[in-house]
């Protein structure tokens, strides 16, 4: 790695890591994949702590693991840069901004929500949120339909029926789908090994 553009001492690297993740987290709206793009700009293009391929791998891993993509990416980047201490520092940098913002909002929420004007605006925005969610569902559902795979489309329909009609617990539905995926993967690998 190129040593010229980066802080050299361990403390300086940890400090830079903390403030970079803090800054990225505080100014990234929309979360998830947007934050990975900002991390790439900072850690790959600017600080040269991570190379392009490593960042791509990290993005794939962050997206594949349970939990928030932003937190997962911070874990991977922090660990890569400065081990366990780096991981702790990067995760703290990522969660402090939303925690502070939401703490302030929740302290005022009760007073805010009982105000006539604020409650009217919030009520109106619910219609917008419903539209945003259903718009996302249309895009994601469209991608599933485009695979033209009876397995994926069948899973989507089955999950909807289980969730919406039979009110099955969401965790059970996710576990069932994961179990189905494992069985399918094992079956396909077995088939691949024989041929």
């Amino acid at each position: 790695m190129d040593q010229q553009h980066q802080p050299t001492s361990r403390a300086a690297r940890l400090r830079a890591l903390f403030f970079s993740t803090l800054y990225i987290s505080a100014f990234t709206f929309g979360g998830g994949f947007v934050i990975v793009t900002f991390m790439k700009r900072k850690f790959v293009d600017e600080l040269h702590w991570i190379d392009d391929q490593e960042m791509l791998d990290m993005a794939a891993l962050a997206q594949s693991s349970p939990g928030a993509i932003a937190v997962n990416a911070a874990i991977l980047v922090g660990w890569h840069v400065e081990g366990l201490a780096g991981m702790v520092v990067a995760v703290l940098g990522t969660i402090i901004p939303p925690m502070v913002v939401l703490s302030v909002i929740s302290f005022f929420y009760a007073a805010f929500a009982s105000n006539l004007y604020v409650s009217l605006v919030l009520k109106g925005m619910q219609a917008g949120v419903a539209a945003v969610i259903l718009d996302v569902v249309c895009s994601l559902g469209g991608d599933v339909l485009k695979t033209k795979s009876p397995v994926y489309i069948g899973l989507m329909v089955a999950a909807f029926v289980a969730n919406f009609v039979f009110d099955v617990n969401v965790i059970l539905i996710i576990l069932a789908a994961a179990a189905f995926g494992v069985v399918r993967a094992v079956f396909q690998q077995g088939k691949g090994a024989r041929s």
Partner: protein
Amino acid sequence: MIYLQLFLSFLQVGLFSIGGGYATMPLIQNQVVELHPWLTLQEFTDLITISQMTPGPIAVNSATFVGIRIAGIPGAIVATLGCITPALILVSLLAFVYNKYKDISVLQNVLSCLRPVVVSLILGAGLSILALVLFNGQTPDVQVVDWIGTGSFVVAFVLLRKFKWNPILTMCLCGAAELVLHLLPV
């Protein structure tokens, strides 16, 4: 023991939300609205609205909001720790496996089966919020239809879908529409 309950609830949110963002929503709704009486559907919807407009992952935002309302600052910290604990363990484990074998095809196979399921779960959460908007949280009936909410929803959906409007802008427009239409002396 409220702290333990908060920790365990958000641990489940962290453990089972795969793909981040909207995938977390049905799990949070399940834990804080359906299984525990921590938020009403109305408050949960406000929380999602607030999360859309503030930085940070929905899971961390929700853990902080619910934690503070139920058990103050310590509650917020405990709930947030709960939602990041599974990631701290599993991401490190996964990174180790990945570096060793450079192959996560089995995992990707499993994820490809989870993705369509998660779409349906998000749809379920979205429909419960839509029902709140259309019928004001009452039993669906023509008599209780909230026409302003219904109109805003349809306009917002078309703006997002057809004209690719920015979600935050669209939501603000809906909020402004409700305010103006209610305060206008008709």
